[in-house]
């Protein structure tokens, strides 16, 4: 009987797994609640020499974004104002103005002075180089 029950239970866990996978597939563009969307959506990469953040900032120029790095915290703040162009009537408005602040905590403090950032095609890219101690090293293995 227990075996049967286990089979029964397990079939649900398969369903759960299926749902998790589907959520992962479709989740990216619907995960956030419509009232409080995560903004900006971002990627964080760990390369051997640096941490790289990519963040979506459509319609924003470098003047609209403030970036600060304190030890291991990267903070992106800014505001996007939207005004319909003058003299036009509005048929449809899906884009929204944003005032945002998002902080990324990196796994370790980074070299703040060497950090760079660029904003191109609506994507902000922040490169925060690792400190010398944190960089990956290859250690030679000696034979006895």
């Amino acid at each position: 009987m227990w075996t049967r029950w286990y089979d029964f239970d397990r079939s649900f866990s398969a369903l759960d797994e299926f749902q998790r996978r589907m959520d992962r597939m479709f989740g990216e563009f619907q995960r956030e609640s419509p009232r409080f969307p995560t903004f900006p959506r971002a990627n964080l990469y760990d390369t051997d020499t640096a941490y790289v953040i990519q963040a979506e900032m459509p319609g924003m120029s470098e003047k609209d974004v403030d970036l600060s790095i304190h030890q291991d915290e990267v903070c992106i703040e800014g505001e996007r104002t939207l005004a319909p162009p003058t003299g036009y009537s509005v048929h449809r408005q899906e884009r929204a103005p944003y005032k945002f602040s998002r902080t990324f905590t990196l796994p370790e403090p980074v070299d703040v002075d060497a950090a760079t950032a660029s904003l191109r095609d609506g994507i902000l890219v922040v490169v925060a180089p690792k400190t010398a101690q944190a960089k990956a090293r290859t250690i030679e293995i000696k034979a006895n």
Partner: protein
Amino acid sequence: MVQQSMQKAGPTKDLMKRETTALPLVTVMPLVDIFENDEELLIVAEMPGARRQDLAVKFVNDTLTLTCARTLEKEGSVLLGELHPAEYNRSFVIPRGVDATKITAELKNGVLNVHLPKGEAARPRQIEVKQL
């Protein structure tokens, strides 16, 4: 035998080569604002990461289609992944009266503006009333 039959069916060879571990490309409907004045319709579409060379704006049979494949440079290992390579795609049925030959589009900071100028017939006119 199986190999022979697979060779006959040409396109399946490409399917075999496809990387199964790669993320499937997500199709995204870009958010748009639509404005109008006496001269033109203006469509403003939000496409972060869109590059000019990847963007296609087509006008066929009164339908305007915006498509763009967004690629992202992947570097090192992923600690947080909220963005993926994606394909923007959205179509609009444009009312008659738009002069299709004069449609222009510009891309700035990941936002696409498409200007659809109205033809002469669709522009507002003041009609003079005659005194009889």
